[in-house]
C-alpha cells in the first residue's frame, strides 16, 4: 500500500512539474512578443537572423515529433523551440521509435512533422537501393518530396549536414590491422565480430549490404541496442560496430575511434528534411516553413556533433542544449 501512495505522489509531482514547465515556456514565448518587433531582421534568412514572434500563430498548435535517438531528439528540440519562438503553441513527442512508427504517427495526424534523413526516406519508405540514392542533397530531396506527395505528405528542403551509417572501430585495431576502407576488411573480417542494431542484420544498407555488395563475412554479427554502439567497442566485445557519421564521439575522440571509408557506397548519406503534411502547412501559415528553414541553416556537421556531444557525453538535457544553441546562434533571446 505504501509504495502505491508514494508512486501516486511521484506521479502527481511529475504532473505538477510538467504543468509548471509548460506554464513557464508559455510565458517565455509571450515575452518574446516585445523583443521581436523588428520584422525585417529575419528577412536575410542567414544563420543568426532572429526568429520573429508572430502573434497570429498563437492559435496554431504544432506537435513536433522525432525518432528515438539522441541526434533526432536534439533536432526535435531545436525545431520545437524555434517554432515556439515564432509564436506557435508547440507540443513535443520526441521518442517515436523507428521511421515506420514516425511516418504512421504523422499520417495519423498525431504529430505535425518530424525530421527524417532523406536517404532513409528513399530506401526505407520508397524502396530505393542504397546505390540509387543521389549523392546531391537537393536532388535526393526533390526525389523524396515527389514520393512523399504521392501519399499526401510533403517535405521542406534539407539541412546543411548529412548523416550516414558507418563501420567504426577503435583506432588501435584499425592501425594494427591496417584498415582504412571497408574493402580492406576482405580477408580479415572472418576474424572480427560486428555489432549493430537488431534491424541492421537484414538491411541492405547495413549488414546485408556488407555481405552482399562487399562480399564480406564476419566472425559473428551481434544485435544490440543502438545506444550501446560505443560501449561494445570500449568493452572489447565488438571489433567493429555500426556507428553514425554524426556521432559526437567521432569528433570528440578522434584518437580513439575511426570509421572505415565506405568505398563501395553501401551506406548512403542523408541530409535531414522536415517531413510534414500539406494540411499542417496550410493551417500553420507561411511562418512554419520559414522558421524551419531558418533554424536549420546553422545545422552543419560540427554544430550537430557539438550539440550531440553535450547531450550524449556531458549528459545535459536535450531541451537545454537546444535552447542555448538557438540563443547563441542569435535565433532567440
Amino acid at each position: 500500500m505504501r509504495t502505491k501512495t508514494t508512486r501516486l505522489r511521484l506521479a502527481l509531482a511529475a504532473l505538477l512539474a510538467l504543468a509548471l514547465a509548460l506554464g513557464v515556456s508559455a510565458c517565455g514565448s509571450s515575452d518574446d512578443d516585445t523583443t521581436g518587433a523588428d520584422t525585417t531582421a529575419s528577412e536575410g534568412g542567414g544563420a543568426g537572423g532572429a526568429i520573429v514572434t508572430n502573434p497570429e500563430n498563437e492559435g496554431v498548435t504544432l506537435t513536433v515529433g522525432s525518432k528515438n535517438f539522441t541526434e533526432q531528439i536534439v533536432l526535435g528540440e531545436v525545431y520545437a523551440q524555434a517554432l515556439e519562438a515564432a509564436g506557435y503553441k508547440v507540443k513535443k513527442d520526441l521518442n517515436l521509435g523507428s521511421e515506420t512508427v514516425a511516418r504512421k504517427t504523422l499520417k495519423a495526424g498525431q504529430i505535425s512533422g518530424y525530421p527524417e534523413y532523406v536517404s532513409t526516406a528513399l530506401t526505407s519508405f520508397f524502396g530505393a537501393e542504397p546505390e540509387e540514392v543521389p549523392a546531391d542533397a537537393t536532388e535526393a530531396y526533390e526525389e523524396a518530396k515527389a514520393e512523399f506527395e504521392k501519399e499526401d505528405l510533403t517535405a521542406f528542403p534539407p539541412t546543411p549536414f548529412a548523416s550516414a551509417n558507418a563501420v567504426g572501430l577503435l583506432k588501435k585495431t584499425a592501425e594494427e590491422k591496417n584498415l582504412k576502407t571497408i574493402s580492406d576488411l576482405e580477408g580479415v573480417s572472418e576474424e572480427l565480430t560486428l555489432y549493430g542494431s537488431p534491424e541492421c542484420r537484414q538491411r541492405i544498407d547495413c549488414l546485408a549490404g556488407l555481405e552482399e555488395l562487399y562480399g564480406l563475412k564476419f566472425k559473428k554479427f551481434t544485435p544490440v541496442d543502438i545506444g550501446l554502439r560505443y560501449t561494445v567497442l570500449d568493452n572489447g566485445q565488438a571489433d567493429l560496430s555500426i556507428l553514425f557519421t554524426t556521432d559526437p564521439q567521432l569528433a570528440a575522440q578522434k584518437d580513439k575511434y575511426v570509421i572505415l571509408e565506405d568505398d563501395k557506397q553501401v551506406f548512403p548519406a542523408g541530409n535531414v528534411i522536415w517531413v510534414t503534411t500539406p494540411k499542417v502547412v496550410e493551417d500553420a501559415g507561411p511562418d512554419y516553413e520559414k522558421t524551419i528553414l531558418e533554424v536549420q541553416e546553422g545545422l552543419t556537421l560540427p554544430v550537430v556533433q557539438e550539440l550531440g556531444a553535450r547531450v550524449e557525453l556531458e549528459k545535459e538535457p536535450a531541451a537545454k542544449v537546444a535552447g542555448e544553441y538557438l540563443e547563441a546562434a542569435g535565433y532567440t533571446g
Partner: protein
Amino acid sequence: MSALLPQPLLASIEGAFEFIFTPQYSNVTGGKKVGGIDQVIELTINQLEVTVYALAIALVVALPIGLYLGHRHRFEALAIAFGTAGRGIPELALIAFMAAAIGVGLLNVAIALAVLGIPPILTNAFVGIHQVDRSAVDAARGMGMTESEILRKVEIPLAIPTLMSGIRGATIAIVATATIAPLAGYLTLGDFIINENVYGENGVLAGAILVALLALALELVLAGVQRLLTSPGLKPRTE
C-alpha cells in the same frame, strides 16, 4: 487516429499468419525475403531456450531462500515486500545495463530475465510454506520427523498450489519479456516485434501472436505439472 489502428482486423491477422508460414518481401533487405516458418521455428526455439535458462536460474536462487524463510517463519515483511518491489524492475534498463556491464548473448539475457522471475517465486514459496496449518506441522514434529522431513513431506506438498502459482507467474513474465533479448545480442521472437522496418506490420503482429501462443502453451504445461505434483488430498473432489 484511425490510421494507427490496424485496418480491418481480420485482414491483419491473415497477413500475420501468412508471414508465419511463408517468407515475405521486405522494403529494406535488397530483395531477400523475411519471415516464414523456418525463421519462426528458429526464433521460437531461441525464445524457449532463454526462458528455460532464466527460469532455472530463478528457481535455483529463489526457491531455497523462500522455502527456508517460510519454514522458519522469518522475515515475513521482507519476503513479501521483495515480491512486490520485484514487479517494478525496469527490465529494459536492466538488460541495457547488463549488456554494457557484462556483455551480451544467451547467458547474460537469461540472467537479466531471471531477475524478473525471482521475486514471485521467492514470495510465493515463502507464503506457501508460511501459511501451512501449524497443527499439521506440530503433528509431524510430534511423530518425530526431522525439520528437513517436515519441509519435504508436509510443508512443500501442502504449499504446492501457492508455490506453483509463483512459478507460473514467473514463467509468463520471463517468456513475455524475452522479446527484448534482440537488444542484447540474442535473437528471439522479439526480433519480429522490434524491427518493423524489416518485417513490416505483419511481422510485428505475427511476433506478438507467437509470443502469446508460447506463453499460453507454457501455462498449460505448468498447469499439468501442478496437477501431477498436487497431493490427492488437496485436489477438489469430483463427486
